[in-house]
């Protein structure tokens, strides 16, 4: 008798829930769409992203859930998830991974209903979309657009007898000024770096794309070219910066720490986005931004790099995901990226809105990098090897190029 009553209550509950659910469907209530968004953590960009989400959610009713793992773990997590078919709807990838991801079928193209090809080509700086175009379709919209600039700590430069209003124009001048600004203790250990080389990528990229006139990575021949005489000359500058008693920085001086932001370095090559980090860590630092040094007698070149927001080909909410990406690359959002994170604009018309004249003018000097695949560690290790060993630079470069060729061939096969 007792069980009969329990059964009756259960059946009645199930019927009631079913009726209510069906009713809500019939009156037109739609399930809420939620987009899962991943990008690596960056202080300035995380703040900007947080500011953009509520406005998008309010306008569209599409919920956005974010995950911002540290840069070091970002690709581990992303690629494992993509391989397992559990990747996010929207994620951020660097330009050098475009070919691998598009060829692998991991990315969904921008639907015409969200943005037409003409619209994309008319709106964004051409170099920030070019690598994500395949077969007349675009597979990503630009974000985190950056070139390289030179930062100078005004106070430390003056202390060293330098004039920050007259930044070094050539690499020779930079080396001379950085040497003058480097301080050592009685044992000869560096206690103030002339040039902060923590961001190795920025230093060697600035050099390679100025010294090598053709491609640094030849995608057609699937090989690296920095073992050419021009490339060797570029790495020889790294040798001048890091080897011997006149080195302007050392891997053993404050390893892994932000020397410039902590007022322990006078010069620093980084992207404009570093402004947001300096503002957070060293808000009282007075600094000057200058164009990266050039080769004597040649026009300076600012290597350009960008990331892109892409949509997972397996996403069940591709349309909504692309609406979110379009919003992130919209004029309003780009203004937020510029203001909060210190990014460069990807939209051509917004270039005049960049407040710093040097950053703005340097955009005209951009030469986009042509790195392919995730081969940066090879060049980073080469940089370390030049600093930490006494082996001839030519030998080290030759070995690195062999490794990079394998890496590039792997990426482009």
């Amino acid at each position, binding site marked *: 008798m007792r069980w009969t009553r329990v059964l009756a209550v259960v059946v009645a509950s199930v019927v009631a829930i079913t009726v209510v659910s069906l009713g809500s469907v019939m009156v037109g209530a739609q399930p809420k769409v939620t987009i899962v968004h991943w990008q690596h953590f960056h202080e300035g960009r995380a703040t900007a992203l947080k500011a953009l989400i509520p406005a998008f959610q309010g306008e569209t009713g599409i919920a956005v859930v974010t995950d911002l793992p540290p840069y*070091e773990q970002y*690709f*581990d997590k992303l*690629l*494992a998830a*993509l*391989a397992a078919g559990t990747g996010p709807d929207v994620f951020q990838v660097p330009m050098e991974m475009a070919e*691998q*991801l598009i*060829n*692998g079928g*991991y990315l969904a193209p921008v639907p015409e209903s969200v943005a037409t090809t003409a619209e994309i080509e008319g709106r964004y700086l051409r170099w920030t979309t070019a690598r994500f175009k395949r077969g007349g379709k675009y597979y990503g919209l630009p974000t985190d657009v950056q070139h390289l600039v030179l930062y100078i700590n005004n106070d430390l430069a003056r202390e060293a007898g330098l004039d920050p209003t007259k930044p070094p124009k050539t690499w020779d001048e930079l080396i001379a000024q950085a040497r003058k600004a480097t301080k050592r203790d009685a044992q000869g*250990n560096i*206690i103030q770096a002339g040039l902060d080389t*923590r*961001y*190795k*990528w920025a230093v060697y990229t600035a050099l390679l794309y100025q010294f090598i006139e053709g491609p640094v990575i030849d995608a057609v021949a699937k090989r690296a070219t920095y073992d050419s005489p021009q490339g060797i000359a570029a790495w020889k500058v790294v040798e001048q910066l890091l080897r011997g008693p006149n080195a302007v920085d*050392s*891997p*053993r*001086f*404050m*390893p*892994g720490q*932000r020397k410039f932001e902590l007022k322990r370095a006078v010069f620093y090559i980084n992207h404009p986005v570093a402004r947001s980090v300096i503002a957070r860590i060293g808000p009282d630092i007075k600094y000057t931004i200058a164009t990266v040094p050039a080769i004597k007698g040649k026009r300076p070149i600012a290597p350009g790099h960008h990331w892109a927001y892409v949509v997972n080909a397996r996403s069940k909410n591709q349309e909504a995901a692309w609406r979110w990406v379009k919003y992130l690359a919209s004029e309003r959002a780009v203004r937020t990226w510029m203001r909060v994170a210190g990014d460069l604009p990807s939209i051509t018309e917004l270039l005049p809105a960049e407040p710093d004249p040097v950053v703005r003018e340097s955009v005209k000097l951009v030469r986009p990098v042509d790195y392919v695949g*995730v081969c940066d*560690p090879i060049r*980073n*290790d080469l940089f*370390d*090897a030049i600093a*930490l*060993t006494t082996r001839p630079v030519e030998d080290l470069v030759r070995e690195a190029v062999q490794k990079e060729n394998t*890496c590039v061939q*792997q*990426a482009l*096969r």
Partner: protein
Amino acid sequence: MRPAGAKVTQQAEARRGIRAIPRRALLTYRTRHVLWAFAFLAPAFVLFFFIVVYPLGWALALSLQDWSFFGAKRFIGLGNYVRLWNDPLFWKSLGISFKWTIGVVPAILMISLPLALFLNAGWLRLKSLYRTGYFVPVVTNIVAVAFVWRWMFDPDFGVINWFLGVLGLPKPGWLADPAWALYAMMVVGVWKQIGQAMVLFLAGLQTIPQEFVDAAKIDGASPWKLFWKITLPLLNPTLLFVVVILVINAFRVFTIPYVMSAGGLQARTPGGPLDSTRVFVLHIYDIGFRQFQLGYASANAFVLMALIIVVTLIQIKLIQRPFEY
């Protein structure tokens, strides 16, 4: 034909209101016993199958394929195993793992065993306090600890170089120097595991019957002789267990070299500088999750598994001493 006595008994039971239990000949008691045992074990078996056997089989199949994650899988037979034989980084990372094992395991044994003997001494007061103190590193989060050690080993501002400076000794570059980085990390590896080995030795020491110790003392055995002739032989099973566990841990070490070489905002390659701390698991991780060559990484992982099995069997053969008084 039923015996007359049985009928009487049945009638007597019926009078007392007890019903005869029908006998089921389908399953014997033993069979039912075994079935119940399997029923209770089933959840564990199912779990083991899905989280160990199935992934292992999948990884083995993967090790026979060329899969760079971005493209389709291609069966290449033993191609990955041939490749690792010719890969200098494979040999280098294997060498670093051996170096780690040879350095870390004996150091832990040499520190933790005397420590356990000391903490087992009858005259010692505040034993629990000391035992807890030495065990704290074991329960401390390894990532957090590795970061702290990284700062302690900082060449410019680290407390270790500060002490060396006070003593007038040269200050190595530690984690920034390929010649010193591995040794710095090994210090952390030893520090982290001393407590675990100590507790195991303590447990082993407390199983040694006091009668043997007393008898040896009455016979005039010196403390040294007592240790070599009584304590160590009777501690052999524990010693074997500790050594095997430590060696397996040593071959599987990952977090300490990873965090100390590349964690945080260092913008450095894990296993650096210049691959000087590229232990074997870090090598597998780098191939699998940085270079996305999952087939090749799986082949390396199977080599590691085989290596651990072989080394463990060798240790059992060399160390195990069946001992009875």
